[in-house]
C-alpha cells in the first residue's frame, strides 16, 4: 500500500493534536479540589485497610 499523501497525514496529525489538546485542557480545567475532597474518605479508608 502506498504511503498516505501529505494532506492526509496533516489532517490525521491535526486530529491527534485536537484530541490531546482537549484532554489537556480537560485535565487542566478539571475541579481537582472537589475531586480530591470527594475521594478523600475513600482513600483514607484504603489506607486504613492497608495498614490494618
Amino acid at each position, binding site marked *: 500500500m*502506498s504511503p498516505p*499523501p501529505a494532506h*492526509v497525514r496533516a*489532517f490525521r496529525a491535526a*486530529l491527534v493534536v485536537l*484530541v490531546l489538546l*482537549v484532554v489537556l485542557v480537560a485535565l487542566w480545567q478539571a475541579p481537582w479540589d472537589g475531586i480530591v475532597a470527594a475521594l478523600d474518605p*475513600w482513600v483514607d479508608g484504603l489506607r486504613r*485497610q492497608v495498614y*490494618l
Partner: protein
Amino acid sequence: MPQVALAVLAVLGITAYLGLCAAFLWFVVWPFAGWLVLVGVVLGALGALVVLLSAPFAADTDLLTADDVDGPWFPPAPPGHGRDRAWPHYLAGQARVDVGAMARRGRGALGALWSPLGGLLNPRAWLALWPLGIAGFLLLLAVTAGAVVTGVAVLALVVTGLALAALVWGAAGRLLRTVDALLRRRNRAAARCPYCFWRTTLPGYACACGLVHHDVRPSRLGVLVHRCRCGRPMPTTVSRAGRDHAPRCPQCDEVLEDGSGVWTDVSIPVLGPVSAGKTSLIYAGLEALRRQAVAGGGTLEPRREADAERFREGVEQVRAGRVAKTEAAAPVGLVCTVTQGRRRALLHTFDAAGELFSTRSATEDLRFLDEAGQMIVVVDPFSIPEVADEVLRGPADEAEAAPAVDPPEVAYEATVPRLRDFGARLDRTDLAVVVVKADLLVDHPIAADLRPDPLAVRRWLCDHGQDQLVVAAERDFAAVGYFLVSSHTGWEPEDRHTALAPLRWLAERGRLPLPPARTALTVGAVGEPA
C-alpha cells in the same frame, strides 16, 4: 473406618483451603482493591488514548486514493465524465475510514485484553488460583471501564470535531462555488470550442501530468485545491484554474482558447440563404467593431494567426466588393479577443454556407447554433419577390445585386425548428434582423420610407411581404432588433448604414466590453420585453 477418616481429612482440607482463600481475599485482595481499580482505570484511559489515536496511522488502515472516488464511500458520480481522478478531501471520506479504524482497533484491543481470561477458565487452574483471579478480574474490569469511557469520549470528540469541520468545510465550498458561478454569470462567461462548437460554462483543465480535470469546482475533492492523482495541486473554481491551466473542451478534449470559461463569451451565428451577404456582413461588422474598440482604447484581435489572415483578406474583399463564396464543407468560426480596460471577452462569429440553411435536415450538424445567446438573420431585400420585380430589371441589375437564391424566410424556417428540437432557449436569445445591401436599395422608390431606424426597417419589412418573418421572430426570440446595413460601405462605424449596428447591439446584450458608442446612429431594438 478408613472411609470416615478420609472424609474427615477431606473436610478438613477443604476447610483449610477455603480458609486460606478467604484470608488471601481479606488480607491481600480487599485492601488493594481500591488501588487496583484506580490504577486500572488510569491505565485503561491511557491505553484507549494510545490505541485510538494511533489507529489512523496504522499500516492496515484503508487509504482512500484518487481511484476510490467512485467507490462506496462516495455518492454516485455525476453523469458524463464521472468524478475526476483526484485525491478525495480528508473530510469527504478518509475521516470516516479513520473513525471506523479507531472504533475497530479499540474493540480489538479490548478483546485482546480479555483473551488471557480464557486460560483461567480451565477448571483446575480456576480452582487453584481463583482468589488471585478475582484480583486480576477486578483489574481487568477497571481497565475496561477506563478504556470504554475514554474511548467513547474520544470517539465522540473526534466525530463531533470532524462533523463540525465537515459542516464548515462544506459551507465554505458551497460559498466559493456560488461566488465563482455568480461572478462568471455576471460576466456571461462561457467556453465555446472552436473545433466541435460545443459550448459550456465548465471547461476542463489539464494537470501537468496530462490528466484532464473536468469539474474543478469546490467539491468532495477539495475546497481550495483538488489534488490530482499524480499529487499536483489543481486550483478549484474555474476563475482560478483558468489563470495557469489551459482549458479543454469537455466534449472533444481539444485545447480551448485561453480565457475560455472565465472571460465573457459572445457567440453570434449568422443565418441566411446563399448569396444573402452573410460573410460580407461579418467582416464589415467586425472591422467596424474593431475600429470602434481601438478608438475607445481597447482592442479586437483574432486569436490565431490563421484567423487574423482570414480576417484581413475578408475585410479587403468586402472593401473591393468581391467576396468569395463560402465553402459548403464546414462552417467557419472566427474567434476574436475583445479588451476594454481590464475587461476581456471572446467574440465568436460563425459563418456557414447558405446551402446549410436551405432545409431543416441541412441544419442538423450546425452545432454552433446551440446555446448561442445572440443571432443574426440576414435579409437580402433583392430576394423579396416584390422588391426584385421592381428593382431588378435586367441581367446587369441582377449581377450587381447578386440576390439570394431563397426568400429570407427560408433560412429562418429551416433553422428555428432545429434550434427548438435541440433544446435551444430561444426565449433567452436575441435576434438581429439585418436588411443588407442598403447601398444598392435606398435610392429606389420602393425604399423611399426605409431608414436605418429599427421601427422603419420593421415597418418596411411588414409592408413588403415579410410580416410572417417579423411575427415569427418576435414570437420566438427574447428580443428582436431591426437594422439596415450596407456591408460594402458600412465597415466605418460612422457610416449611415454601418455593419457595426447589429453586431454592437448583440454584443452589448451579451455583455461584451465595448467603449461608449461614438456613432451618431442610435442603435435601438424593437420587440424587446418591457
